């Protein structure tokens, strides 16, 4: 038997057999029902998006405050008053002890 010829004939036979492209009824609905739920992913995405937005606004506020401090330095007198008052308050108890001795 001529195997090459037989092979040729059978391949030609297979070529004449074009498969159908019919799709079962409501196949797309079945696929949609089987799609993995994205609820968990959505929550994670929302959470991550919220965090990024918070980080961005925090950086913006920090930059604004930095700029404000840089461009509007408090006067030297006021600054020393503030530090002096802070120091006095903090060391008030020590000062009181020294005075009583």
């Amino acid at each position, binding site marked *: *038997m*001529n*195997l*090459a*010829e*037989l*092979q040729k*004939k*059978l*391949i*030609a*036979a*297979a*070529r*004449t*057999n074009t*498969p*159908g*492209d*019919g*799709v*079962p009824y409501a*196949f*797309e609905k*079945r*696929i*949609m029902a*089987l*799609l*993995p739920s*994205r609820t968990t*992913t*959505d929550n994670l*995405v929302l959470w991550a998006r919220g965090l990024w937005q918070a980080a961005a606004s925090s950086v913006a506020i920090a930059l604004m405050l930095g700029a404000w401090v840089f461009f509007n330095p408090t006067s030297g007198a006021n600054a020393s008053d503030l530090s002096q008052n802070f120091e006095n308050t903090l060391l008030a108890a020590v000062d009181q002890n020294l005075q009583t001795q």
Partner: protein
Amino acid sequence: MERTEAELISAVLKGNAASFEPLVQKYSPRVFSTARRYARRESEVEDIAQEAWLKAFKKLGSFRGEAPFEHWLMRLTVRTCYDFLRRHQRNRESAFSDLTEPESDWLEHFMTQPEAVSENTDAARLLVARILERLSPPARLIITLLEIEDRSVKEIAALTGWSVPLVKVRAFRARAEMRKILAKLPKDKYL
């Protein structure tokens, strides 16, 4: 207004799974047609199509939009078919003793008048389907794509993910494997 494929894909990637449905509707005929080349039972065809679409949804993020969506989907479908073939190799060792009468008649006719026998008969189609089922998964994939669908080696390489030299080697082996199977046809009757 109808949304474009790119818009639908973008919407799915943003979490709108419902936008996947028009894609399934549009391309399922192609997916089913491809799956029917590799599976005979309709339940198996549906399983392949379903698996291909679920993979497509899962891997949609890897679609870069450089080639048409259909090409990307066909690559995925062909690879799903190949996986199916590898999982279902049950019929490969079946004997040719159970040839139907029309198949035997066709072979006998071929023996007597090879040129006169028509390939456009149900018997020839059934016989070739039987022979394709006995091929190994890579051989069947290659014979289908190269010989039956008449695709180029380059196209097959793109569809399967194999290199061009590997496709050539597998094509050579597949033809030899097919001839070996044909040689196993009942010798006492046809040789």
